[in-house]
């Protein structure tokens, strides 16, 4: 069992309140996933050549300004850093590949959780309500977000195994369920020289979908391909810079409920985490059908 949540705000006036609206959704899904938690939030993109990186350290007193200083010299960029406990949001004119290689060489255990122009990601082990407060989810602003509370069933409980998983840029996935052929999916992707950070089944799904999109698929085509290649139980919720995408497996064994109004679309494993949303009594509330792809787009 795990909890998934997603929220996309359709109007500018609600967007400063994204975090305030999503925090109770998150808290009420804690029972479904008490061991780890994470949230990816998408905001207005930074201008090229800048990129955003969400960085994670095991240390709660990591010297992020020293890291930024070294980056200036070694990677010839002007990073800005905002620190959130053991994580930092770093903006710099640098590409993901060189940054990851540089971090690995430095050998101080700092990892990239997410890269892109819009995405900011927080995740860690621990009770979801504590994770949410440590990273001040209530203060987050943006157009949409995708979150997860984890009850591990197939691989270890570690910060890296917490959801959302990311691949490429501005792409993340959360998963409720369990896959039965993640290793054959991994082998397929390893032949394409893709690298994995964990042995988690959901990471395999995340990387598979993002790999399909690098091959030219739309998200719909990538998911149609996943219906063929990925076996198991799943509700997947995917976040990209402009979209949230929801899909359930052919049996629809894992729950999901959607509430949509003129103001927002909200997704959760259970209705109780949507009950507080404004206007939910008048919302169009429905359960996604098996193997039907639901895509919501940020209004231009």
């Amino acid at each position, binding site marked *: 069992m795990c909890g998934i949540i997603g929220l996309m705000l359709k109007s500018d006036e609600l967007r400063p309140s994204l975090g305030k609206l999503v925090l109770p959704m998150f808290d009420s899904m804690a029972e479904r996933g008490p061991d780890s938690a994470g949230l990816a939030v998408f905001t207005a993109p930074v201008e090229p050549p800048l990129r955003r990186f969400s960085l994670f350290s095991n240390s709660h007193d990591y010297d992020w300004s020293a890291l930024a200083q070294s980056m200036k010299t070694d990677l010839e960029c002007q990073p800005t850093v905002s620190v959130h406990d053991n994580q930092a949001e770093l903006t710099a004119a640098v590409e993901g590949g060189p940054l990851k290689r540089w971090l690995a060489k430095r050998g101080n255990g700092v990892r990239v959780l997410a890269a892109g122009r819009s995405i900011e990601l927080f995740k860690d082990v621990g009770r979801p309500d504590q994770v949410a407060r440590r990273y001040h989810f209530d203060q987050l602003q943006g157009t949409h977000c995708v979150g997860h509370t984890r009850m591990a069933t197939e691989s270890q409980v570690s910060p890296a195994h917490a959801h959302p998983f990311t691949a490429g840029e501005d792409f993340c996935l959360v998963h409720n369920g369990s896959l039965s052929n993640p290793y054959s999916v991994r082998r397929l992707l390893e032949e394409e020289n893709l690298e994995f950070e964990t042995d988690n089944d959901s990471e395999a799904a995340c990387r598979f979908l993002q790999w399909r999109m690098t091959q030219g698929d739309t998200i719909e085509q990538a998911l149609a391909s996943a219906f063929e290649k990925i076996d198991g139980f799943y509700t997947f919720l995917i976040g990209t810079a402009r979209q949230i995408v929801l899909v359930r497996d052919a*049996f*629809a064994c894992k*729950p999901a*409920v959607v509430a949509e109004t003129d103001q927002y679309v909200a997704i959760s494993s*259970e*209705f*109780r*985490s*949507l*009950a*507080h949303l404004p206007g939910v009594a008048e919302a169009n*509330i429905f*359960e996604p*059908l*098996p193997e039907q792809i639901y895509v919501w787009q940020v209004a231009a």
Partner: protein
Amino acid sequence: MKTVQLDLSKLSVRQLNDYLHHRLASESVREIEILNPNGMHNIAVGLDYPVEVHIRGNAGYFVAGMNQQAAVTVYGNVGWSVAENIMSGVVRVRGNASECAAASGHDGMVVIEGDCSSRCGISMKGCDIVVGGSIGHMSGFMAQAGNLVVCGDAGAHLGDSLYEAQIYVGGKIHSLGADAQEEPMTEADHAKVAALLKRAEVDISSKNFKRVASGRTLYHWNAEAHQEY
């Protein structure tokens, strides 16, 4: 004889159910109103007393599970497994129901006025289910006894591995499950459907119900059948 209001913004579900299990007879309660359910799970499970319960709003999983004697009405939508294992009484949902409505219900009646999601009436064992709208995939899976009446459409694999329950569908059937077959409606079937709709207080003008029942070909192992795994 009195009416009691219980507010779930002030009480926990555990406190509520404790009251419903232990205080109704001693306080001669005939009617209960439950406020602010907000999708919480396990509301009014295990009732065993002739009381009317009105739940004002959306309820979560297992609402009115294992019901006996009580008449429970939910004025909203419900989550998974409403009226699971119902033994007697009536459970009515004014809105829509999620998966596994009335799963393994033994007796009594479950009325969903809106739509039901997948696996409605899974493994039902004698209860009557009336759905005003449509039902999702794999409904009536391994249903053993009782009646499932659906005024709207039925999703894929209806009545898969059905035993002796009967399914009546007023709308379209997306597909039948293994060993489920459509059979001609007899006078007795028409009379039964009309009586169930009347008891459920569901008003529908359609006279074109289809009957789905077991082909009974799975009752015995057929060693000569061509099997591919």
